[in-house]
């Protein structure tokens, strides 16, 4: 399992971050003392480090510099300073990415995925669920021999449902996911998209793949 190290001195925030990471399938470790931050990072075997720039005793950017002397571990810098200059400075010290407070969870997770993806050199192009296969690159849906083309929104919605297979997904969650991916749909458009998606699923023999749970959301059968 992928392990992420959280370096954040605000206890409550650190605990919340840890919670979010655990909920999303990562193993999470939190640094407790900041006397030897660089050392602790070095000793940890994490696959990625979330580093708050404002930690006690030492400047976050200095930590980054020192860590980089010995290791290539991916680091995402967390900060409340939001000017262009700070971003440039952090990146020049070796950060892989940069997230500003207050955090948007979805964005944070996407960035983590992106940085880890880059580190491992992997590119997930195809998603599978039971007999259903969607090709993210070609935007197609395949069920055995039958294939149909999906619109961008339909693709995003279905891939999100697949990622969360086994769980009921609320409409609000789907909306958030779409918006975080720059697809700014409103409520009506979402309904239209889901209906069209269902029609296309029916056309390849997956009529009731998306089930509605009243007042709760959708779930893949």
């Amino acid at each position, binding site marked *: 399992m992928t392990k992420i190290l959280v370096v954040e001195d605000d206890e409550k925030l650190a605990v919340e971050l840890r919670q979010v990471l655990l909920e999303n399938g990562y193993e999470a470790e939190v640094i407790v003392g900041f006397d030897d931050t660089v050392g602790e990072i070095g000793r940890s075997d994490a696959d990625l480090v979330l580093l708050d720039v404002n930690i006690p005793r030492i400047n976050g950017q200095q930590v980054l510099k020192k860590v980089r002397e010995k290791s290539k571990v991916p680091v995402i810098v967390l900060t*409340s300073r939001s000017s262009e*200059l700070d971003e440039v400075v952090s990146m020049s010290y070796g950060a892989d990415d940069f997230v500003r407070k*207050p955090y948007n*969870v979805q964005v944070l997770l996407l960035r983590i995925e992106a940085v880890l993806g880059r580190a491992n050199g992997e590119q997930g192009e195809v998603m599978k669920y039971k007999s259903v296969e969607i090709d993210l690159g070609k935007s197609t849906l395949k069920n055995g021999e039958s294939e149909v083309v999906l619109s961008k929104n339909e693709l995003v919605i279905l891939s999100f449902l697949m990622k969360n297979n086994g769980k009921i997904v609320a409409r609000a969650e789907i909306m958030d996911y779409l918006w975080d991916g720059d697809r700014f749909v409103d409520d009506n458009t979402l309904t239209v998209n889901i209906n069209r998606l269902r029609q296309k699923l029916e056309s390849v023999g997956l009529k009731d793949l998306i089930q509605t749970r009243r007042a709760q959301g959708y779930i893949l059968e």
Partner: protein
Amino acid sequence: MSFWQYIKDGLIKGLLYAVFVMLVISVLVVFKTNMAAVWCVVGLFVFFGVALVMYDYWRKRDFYNGMRKILDGLDRKYLLGELLDEPRFLEGRLMCGALYEAGKAMTEEVSDSRRYVDGYRDYVEMWVHEIKTPLAGLGLSLRKESRETKIYLEEMANYIEQALYYSKIDTVDKDYVVKQVKLSEIVKVVVKNGKDSLIKNGVKVVMRDLDVVVNSDAKWLEFILNQIVVNAVKYRKDDPKIEIFAEQGEGRTLLKVRDEGIGIKKSELKRVFEKGFTGSNDRKVKVSTGMGLYIADRLAKELGHKLRIDSMEGEWTEVSVEFGKEKFFEVRE
């Protein structure tokens, strides 16, 4: 100080002098003095009288004219006392000394005020920086809550950003960096920023023709655009729609935000960017501070951009950001 002013001022003295001369002449005549001698005396009185006037006038005129010139050329007029050279005549010296003292006191107060404002500005910057941490914590703890709840966070974040950017107006150390920025990227960030209120209020967001690059500071531009979008959402009608697009032409680029909201009265349009202006439509919606567009307008000016607004009351409102011919040098990547 013109010659006529000087003469008018000395009229009484002149009159007294004339009376004096006439008295002397009368005495001489009464004592049966030789007329030639009397005329000589008159001549001497007149001659020296005029000479005295010319001398006095000449001393003072140069000083006062010089003073006028300095004053007209001074931006910070309270510094006059420091720049004036002391004149040779007593009244002038007395006034100059007083002017210098008064000016010094003024300068000290101005410095004190400046120091106070700078201190306050630093405090606001620090405050904004610190409050982002609990705000982030709140955002994470409330991530599973309803949109109604999360909208409060969006509103808080907006007011906090306003406080930060308000203190950036008119500073000496400009912290913006003008680079090439893609309008599409800026708009995406801003729309996502207001996600909860846009979705909750059923706003249809349409973005088009934004594949344009302009010279600006990304963060400042995001703030400006955010204020415009927040207003578009606030002053909406049923079935709200916001269209964000770019127009190019005549050596300038325009970024436009058009909403189909309650609009603004034609008579109030030119006041929209005034500090604290809230307009008559505001009472129908909710109480507003009237600061958002004011700050946005001031910042836009500093960047060399121009904000414009047009509206049809009850129908639509369109705010544009004009990126004109740049007055800056680009920062080379």
